[in-house]
């Protein structure tokens, strides 16, 4: 019994908590310098966070009696506010940690790519109760005067069982929030249209960057490397801006596995690949990349963050105690 008591005291003590904070800090520092990204998934690191959660929960429970006595008595005093603040602050941190745990157990996040006109059944991407479909009506990039990007916007329609139930413009900082599923404007890409002859057929279709064409009448193959909206030979593959001021397609021609050459072509300028073999790029279409997420822990984490913020403000505003305040007055 006494041993149990000792263990409980050890796990719930502030000293243990502070050592945990220090260890988490050191581990995070090491992680960010040596193994960014993967480090924070390591079980040992997660264990530290779990131990902190345990320690803080027990510590809060242990102090609860004392805190509640203060909160029930000296209403309105500095001490009262400080204790209330401290309680909220610690509860807030606990909620944030619990919210994070809920996400890591039940949360889902996936990336979807949509061309205008395409649609995706979200219940095939995420495991959710109320299925719905997102259809991309339009994806556009808006520009500032200097050509820099002002906003990326995906205009979507939401459908349930084939019926339209809503529509939204998803842009950076303005995610869609529909029945607990959120969709964020994350990225975009291009599909280049090319015309050429393959297997005796005149073809005109769209290709993603990196795709290969095998035109008739030659052994040579063409790789569509990259679409450059504002091409500048000085900068090569780096578009000046995303605004299509000088759109060109960078392609390379291969024979067997050897590169014969790399070129940049304007739209509708036929490119000679071999004798009498031409390919022309006729246009480009951009597609959107959205992250869709289901995080049942989010409301808890948000509430935790707010409690934390409120609590810390109370603690600071209520400090220092009147005794200290007198000391802080300038001495004559």
């Amino acid at each position, binding site marked *: 019994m006494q041993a149990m008591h000792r263990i409980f005291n050890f796990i719930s003590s*502030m000293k243990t*908590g*502070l050592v945990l*904070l*220090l260890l*988490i*800090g050191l581990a*995070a*520092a090491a*992680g*960010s*310098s040596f193994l*960014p*990204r993967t*480090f*924070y998934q390591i079980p040992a690191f997660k264990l530290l966070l779990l131990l902190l959660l345990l320690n803080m929960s027990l510590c809060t429970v242990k102090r609860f009696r004392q805190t509640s006595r203060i909160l029930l008595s000296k209403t309105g005093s500095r001490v009262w506010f400080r204790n209330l603040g401290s309680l909220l602050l610690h509860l807030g941190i606990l909620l944030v940690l619990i919210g*994070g745990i809920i996400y890591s157990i039940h949360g889902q*996040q996936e990336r979807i790519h949509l061309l205008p006109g395409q649609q995706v059944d979200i219940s095939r991407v995420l495991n959710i109760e109320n299925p719905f479909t997102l259809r991309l009506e339009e994806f556009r990039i808006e520009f*500032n005067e*200097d050509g*820099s*990007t*002002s*906003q*990326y916007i995906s205009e979507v329609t939401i459908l349930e069982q084939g019926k339209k139930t809503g529509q939204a413009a998803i*842009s*950076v*900082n*303005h*995610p869609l929030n529909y029945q607990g599923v*959120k969709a*964020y404007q*994350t990225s975009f890409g291009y599909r280049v249209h090319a015309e050429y002859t393959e297997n005796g057929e005149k073809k005109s279709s769209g290709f993603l960057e990196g795709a290969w064409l095998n035109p008739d009448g030659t052994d040579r193959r063409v790789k569509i490397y990259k679409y450059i909206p504002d091409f500048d030979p000085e900068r090569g593959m780096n578009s000046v801006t995303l605004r299509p001021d000088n759109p060109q397609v960078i392609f390379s021609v291969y024979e067997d596995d050897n590169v014969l050459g790399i070129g940049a072509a304007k739209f509708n300028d036929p490119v000679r690949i071999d004798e009498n073999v031409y390919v022309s790029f006729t246009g480009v279409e951009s597609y959107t990349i959205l*992250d869709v*997420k289901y995080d049942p822990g*989010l409301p808890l*984490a*948000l509430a935790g*963050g*707010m409690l*934390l*913020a409120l609590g*810390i*403000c109370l*603690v*600071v505003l209520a*400090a*220092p105690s009147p005794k*200290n305040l007198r*000391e*802080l007055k*300038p*001495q004559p």
Partner: protein
Amino acid sequence: MGIIMTFIVYGVLVIYLAAGVLYLAGNRTGREAVHKYALIAAAAGCVLHFAVLSMRTALTGMLPLTNGLDFLLTFSWITVVTFLLLSHRFRIKAAGGIVMLMSASMVLVLIILMKGRLDAVSPLMPALKSPWLTTHVITAAISYATFTLAAGLAIMQFFPAGRAIKDDYVNLLVRGAFALLSLSIVIGAIWAEQAWGRYWSWDPKETWALITWLIYAIYLHLYNRRGWSGSYARWIVIGGFLLVLFTFFGVNYLLPGLHSYV
């Protein structure tokens, strides 16, 4: 415009250095008059510094908060303003030399990094177009400035001239700065959830802001324990300030992530 601004910033640097030297001289000679001159110099530098901030605001049409360099410009100014306001009420003039030299170094770093681009204007990138921008960055800037002051006072406590500086002054500053850092991190997380789809992604800036926060949290928990105020506490405040510097410079320049808008 660029040339005028560069000229004024050099002026601010020189005046801050002068104010710093005067404050130190005041400590040495123990003459109130010297401290008064130092105060006048610092205030004059502060006014010029504010002129640069105003010109940046006029140029960009936004408060100077949207990139690392504007942040540095704002945060060094807040450091000086807060010091001047507080030194009016509390006995912390002795730290004036250190605080002015710290602010001068920030202005110097700004001049080096800016390479004369003080009139550079670029529109906000989409991720920054959010009502959270101002609150997130202002809280961070005031927090950093207050941590700087706290560290300045803590350093001064090691010298005989800093005897009037009470541990409680430093503690009060750290508390305020800690609360503001907490607000900035919480707001940053709320914003990150909207902008990037995750409220915490262990991006270097997030990670180092958290590490900084943890160290000061440890300090605040230990402060009231017997034996911890005094020299230990001072060292943590100084160490915490080094973390603040790393979170700002190290992360912006060495560990680029989502948060690099330099």
